């Protein structure tokens, strides 16, 4: 038997292949089946696709790196559900590309922030200067969001990518409607408007369970 492992030791190519086989077991058992599970591939019945304004807000959220300090993942622990709201399930994130679960909580979890009784005005003041409303906060201020208008140039393409590549059920009519609003009432929307709209949309699929 001793000769067999000397074969592996002396053949780097074979060793690489066998190493890859060995480390793939975990993924094959834990990840691959999820691609075909209903719980992870079927959207919740109460889920609705983002509006163009929320989608733009989501892009700003990603650009500013909000997900670096804020998670969007309420774990099934009592302390968390007591503080934030219903725990997160996979069916809520079927249309999230990329998902923004995050992995570090410098700030509070935001997955249910839209369900909390917080006014839009508070969100705006808080984004412009967090310490104005929460003196002990260490969140950076984002005053430029109120000054920048949303860059709408890619929105139609974004919505189409979400529809065609990611299977989000926008109809062509939905996209037309959204683009009409983009050219109309949202034409001069600021990035702050967009982010606040996005924040208020978070968790809405679970409103009934709050």
């Amino acid at each position, binding site marked *: 038997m001793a000769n067999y492992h000397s074969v592996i030791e002396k053949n780097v190519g074979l060793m690489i292949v066998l190493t890859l086989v060995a480390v793939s077991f975990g993924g094959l058992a834990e990840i691959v*089946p999820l691609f075909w599970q209903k719980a992870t591939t079927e959207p919740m019945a109460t889920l609705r696709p983002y509006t163009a304004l929320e989608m733009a807000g989501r892009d700003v959220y990603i650009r500013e790196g909000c997900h670096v300090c804020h998670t969007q993942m309420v774990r099934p622990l009592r302390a968390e559900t007591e503080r934030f709201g219903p725990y997160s399930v996979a069916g809520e994130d079927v249309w999230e590309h990329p998902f923004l679960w995050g992995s570090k909580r410098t700030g509070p979890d935001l997955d249910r922030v839209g369900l909390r009784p917080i006014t839009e005005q508070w969100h705006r003041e808080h984004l412009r200067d967090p310490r104005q409303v929460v003196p002990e906060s260490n969140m950076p201020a984002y005053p430029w969001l109120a000054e920048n208008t949303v860059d709408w140039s890619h929105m139609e393409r974004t919505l189409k990518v979400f529809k065609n590549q990611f299977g989000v059920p926008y109809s062509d009519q939905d996209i037309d409607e959204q683009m009409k609003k983009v050219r109309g009432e949202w034409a001069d929307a600021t990035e702050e408007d967009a982010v606040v709209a996005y924040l208020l949309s978070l968790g809405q699929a679970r409103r009934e369970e709050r």
Partner: protein
Amino acid sequence: MSQFWSVYIIAIVVLNLVGCAILLLVNLKMTPEEARNETTGHSFDGIQERNQPLPRWWLFLFVGTLIFSVVYLVLYPGLGRFGGLLNWSSVTQWEQEVALVEKRTEPLFEQFAKVPVDELHQYPEARDVGGRLFANNCAICHGSDARGAKGYPNLTDDDWLYGGSADAILTSITNGRNGMMPPMAAAIGGTDEAVRDMALYVQSLSRPDMTSDPQVAAAVERAKPKFAVCAACHGQDATGNHALGAPNLTDGIWLHGARLEDIETTIRQGRNSHMPKHEGVLSDERLHVLAAYVYGLSRNDEE
């Protein structure tokens, strides 16, 4: 999980365990005697590399992990659809945690519910519970010390927009409040001067010494008659109106800033304040305790 994926997962997991065990057994076959005679065949400058058996401590550790995995897979979910003998899942664990705490706190909240709001704040236990509820639900706007922020009322100063009675506080928390001051510049003359005069007059209401300045005194005289339009909400004596949420202008407490500029902005643009309702967000028993906590914030001296 379908039958196929269940079998697929079980197959991989079992294959893995068996594979590890075989690997281990195969390497065990070499006795120390054999090892002493055998080298790997590598030889450099006359130095030969020996083929050593696995150290015993490491071997036992490996066997230990194999036994652990088998025990784990019997007790906990891991083998496809087999849920484990303990029937554990993160969801049932969460449900048990919640049920346990509910069972423990329910009698407490029931007990609190029997005490009226204006007495409950004297119970230290209720204050502790209320403080936690406040920190999680109210502190975001009213501050962790409940002293508020610009635009968000201080709850510790016993100055109340909608009344400081137990009922009024409970109503404010449960149903929320909508405070609305319309832009008033046009109603008092519309000029910058008229607005400045009125701001000086309103400021002087809580700072009578201001009128020793003759310029201010003149402005106050000019603004006084126009205050009638303000009095509709703030009252003839400017002490406010709890029914409308119109603040008392004579007490030196300024929700939207005490500077002359702030007061002018308020007159010019009006103010919209919104306290969200918490009905449905918190249970009635919790709202009761929370109201008592807020009621007690400005009455700590009584104890």
